[in-house]
């Protein structure tokens, strides 16, 4: 049952309990703000794209049940930083109402915050968008097309992996499947979030806007730092827009074709065995497969970057405490904030940092990190607390310096902050709580 709300004037909360869930590769944080007479619960992301082998099969349902328990049957707000699988799958519903998203929906969130690119109206009316040099309308269309492209990549990579004989290339195709799945549209989760937003208040935010959380978190200062608009971050000509949009529309058509089975373009033409090609082709055929694998990898990486850079970046302030939640924002998203000295002075006082993008190499800008004044050795009073939700060996490669979490970053986090990684929970423990007196 939903807790009854007091109509008393808002006062600042005195305590924050942050519950970091073990979702494997993904993010899920429940923030419980303790007011003098009540609690307010905000869920930031709920998704997974790879779980520990020892985790229960119905992990997401177990987490949803725990969220319900923790918030006493009433969520005040949900923040979806962006729509990648590892942030959104927990909102998936089932026809029989057994999905984790069904549980969350029943918690009746009053506010649902998403990046402006999720705004259904943005698809037709927007004139500005996020990070990468494309006008708003095209950008949203592009993101939409990317889902179809992802579906095509997953289908094609899956087929290629099945017929691949070279182990290293088979591994590459399997890795592509993981990356591609990140970007596939989770329609039920998207529709669920939209419905929850309609039932309460939906806000679609960008840098500098009010978050919409103010009414459920009285006394908490909230700053939306990202995503920036395109006008804020770039001034690329519209002609480039046409190229990019054109490309993604065509890629989406190719993706649909691949997802539908990947029929060869000349089904009636005479062919030779590709498994045992004639001697003159034996050197070249595997090379074309490698070329294709690399091409697909480039595409999914670009899509991944683009989607990550739509992440909402939120800064919560209560008194001297500051909590920074950047989703998966990468440097392109961060850049607009980094360029503003006033904001950077403010960010210097961050006391809690949710490590961006599961600890990847380019989601914790060094300028930001080295600007944190609470950063320091173990004996530093009021030392910065950092938490990363991640799972090693799912993403990137050590040889290329793209592994997630990035070793050099983790070393720095361990050295100069009170660092916690959800990996340390293994597959048996559902979550870890952190308490903050405010």
């Amino acid at each position, binding site marked *: 049952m939903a807790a009854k709300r007091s109509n008393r004037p808002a006062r600042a909360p005195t305590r924050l309990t942050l519950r970091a869930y073990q979702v494997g590769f993904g993010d899920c944080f429940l923030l419980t703000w303790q007011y003098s007479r009540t609690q307010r619960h905000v869920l930031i992301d709920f998704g997974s794209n790879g779980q520990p082998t020892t985790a229960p099969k119905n992990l997401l349902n177990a987490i949803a049940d725990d969220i319900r328990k923790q918030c006493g049957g009433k969520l005040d707000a949900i923040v979806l930083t962006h729509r990648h699988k590892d942030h959104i799958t927990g909102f998936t519903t089932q026809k029989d109402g057994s999905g984790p998203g069904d549980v969350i929906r029943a918690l009746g969130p009053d506010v649902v915050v998403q990046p402006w690119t999720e705004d259904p109206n943005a698809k037709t009316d927007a004139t500005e968008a996020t990070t990468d040099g494309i006008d708003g309308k095209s950008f949203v269309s592009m993101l939409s097309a990317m889902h179809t492209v992802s579906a095509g990549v997953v289908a094609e990579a899956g087929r290629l992996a099945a017929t691949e004989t070279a182990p290293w290339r088979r591994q590459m195709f399997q890795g592509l499947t993981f990356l591609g799945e990140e970007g596939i549209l989770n329609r039920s989760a998207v529709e669920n979030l939209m419905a929850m937003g309609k039932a309460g208040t939906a806000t679609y935010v960008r840098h500098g806007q009010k978050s919409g959380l103010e009414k459920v978190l009285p006394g908490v200062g909230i700053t939306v730092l990202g995503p920036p608009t395109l006008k804020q971050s770039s001034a690329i000509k519209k002609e480039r827009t046409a190229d990019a949009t054109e490309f993604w529309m065509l890629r989406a058509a190719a993706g649909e074709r691949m997802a539908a089975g990947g029929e060869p373009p000349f089904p009636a033409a005479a062919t030779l065995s590709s498994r045992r090609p004639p001697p003159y082709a034996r050197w070249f055929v595997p090379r074309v497969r490698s070329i294709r694998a690399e091409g697909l990898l480039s*595409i999914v990486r670009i899509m991944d970057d683009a989607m990550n850079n739509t992440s909402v970046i939120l800064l919560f302030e209560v008194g001297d405490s500051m909590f920074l939640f950047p989703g998966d924002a990468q440097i392109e998203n961060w850049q607009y904030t980094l360029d503003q000295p006033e904001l950077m002075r403010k960010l210097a006082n961050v006391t809690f940092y949710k490590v961006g993008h599961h600890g990847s*190499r380019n989601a914790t*800008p060094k300028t930001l990190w080295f600007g944190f004044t609470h950063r320091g050795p173990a004996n530093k009073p009021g030392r910065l607390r950092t938490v990363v939700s991640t799972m090693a060996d799912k993403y990137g490669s050590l040889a290329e310096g793209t592994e997630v979490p990035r070793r050099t970053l983790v070393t720095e986090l361990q050295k100069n902050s009170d660092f916690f990684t959800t990996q340390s929970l293994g597959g048996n423990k559902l979550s870890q709580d952190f308490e903050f007196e405010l």
Partner: protein
Amino acid sequence: MWRSLGRRRDEATIRILLKARLMPRSTRSSASPSVSRSRSRTPSRRTESRTRPLTIVAQDPSIVRDGRILTATVDVPAEALAAGPWGHRVQIIDYDASTDTLYKPLNATAHGTGGQFLDPYANAADRTILRDPNFHAQNAYAIVMRTLARFEFALGRRVSWGFGSHQVKVAPHAFADANAFYSERDEALVFGYFPGHDGALVFSCLSHDVVAHETTHALLDGLRTRFTDPSSPDQAAFHEGYADVVALLSVFSLTGIVEYLIDYSGKRRDTKRDRRVIARKYVDHEQLRESIVFGLAEQMGSELSGVRGQPLRRSLALSRSPRHYRDDPDFLEPHRRGEILVAAVLNAFISIWSHRLETLGDVVPGHLDRRRVVEEGAAAADRLLTMVIRALDYTPPVRIEFGDFLSAALTADAELQLDDSKYHLREHLRESFELFGITAASRGTATEPGTWRAAKALKLSFSRTHFESLTRDPDEVFWFIWENRRALEVFDGAYGRVLSVRPCLRIAPDGFALRETVAEFYQVIKVSAAELPRYGLRAPNGMPRSTVVSLYGGNALVFDEYGQLKYNIHNNISDSVRQQRRLDYLWRYGFFNAEQVTTNRFAELHLRRAMGATLERATGEEW
């Protein structure tokens, strides 16, 4: 056979051999004498030929004339083909990775055996053109071979690919994707296919300019291997811009394409339409430009913009103003910047063509012979194409900038063609480049402004080197450089290597031969960022002192037929202005990041261009 031709060729003969003959798809076009030769219903046959005719799509399937795809018959060097087609320089292997399909090639006999050369697709129907993978294979083969032959003709020697082996592998349907590129590592040109707006598949291997563009990358990589190094914005743009220039001039040198443009011009404006003439007022500079824009650029399949961008349309849209160049951040992306080079050359092409037409007499008052107008257009493109290919031998081997290329083109042409009074190629090229803010790297002479300074004033020692070896032996050339390193302004203390020594024979329009030997020399030193001030450089903001930085330099040495040095064209390590510009650019655009090291630069570049993704990366922020 082609080799034996090399000993006795003259320009007129070879021009005929390389000339593309249009295969018109309508009875209206049968006025062209070349048409009647190739309209037979049965596969055409030739014996004892040095060239062979093959049918290709003239530009791409979107260029339609009288309801049919416009095709051309081009002559390419004759050779005994194996199934593929598979010749001495090109091997087509039609493997599609996306669907794991290996298409069976036509039997070798289809293209002729025993000295017979057949064109199995003479008069092919549109349905065949679009749906027969073996036609696609032939189309790719013929365009790659034609482009290669064009380079060899212009440079007067064999031209190697940018990798070790003799044969480039070509996959006409490599994957289901809107991309096509040259892969040095894989010794390959790969072409994608994808559904177009109407759902029908678009095949990039059927696009003449796309195939010629990618082939040019492979050839340019062979001729100037260091041009793919991360360097200046101009160098990154040069590969793309130059490949577009060659591809577009190659297309414009087809009389059928020019005819198509002129037709378009006539249809739009000339209601009387006597097809033998065209009003003079419709073929001045502006009208010709408009014909190219609306007659071809807008017609070329827009779906292919994901593969090739839209260099023709976009470069012609650039206004002739120096404001576009160098300092405008919008023109830092390699393809965008390359459009400036394309714009300058295309503008020169139109100027040369319109200038030629001004000199023609009227066949009826105010009207020109239409066929002559077409021939002059194709000839202007052909001449300019020769000039820009020859320019490569006169470019510095490293860190090219557009001004270097202009000086190289002017010098190459002046060397071979003293009298420029017919086409005014050099004058138009120089003026056109200046209109787009590109000035020649060299001041030149009073009579030949913009050309490289001759090396005759240098005090050089030849006493320890041997003329004959100097024309072919890299060690001998290196010795010459070592002996003369101060005069040649070679940097002391750097690693140096002679990359190539290439003797060449070029035939001038007057029939005389120009013999030259062109050698490429490059140098590199690796220093830490902390050491940069020693070289007159400063580390870019944020660059750690321990960062290892490579500084490159190089010389193109052009020797005359007596073994004397004619030109020493160089970009030195000690050129601190250019080195600083390069360093700042590379740092700003993240070329020092591990992530930027990509296995296939062209693939990534094309992809990012098409996706509108910026190249600029925040540097120093990553872990």
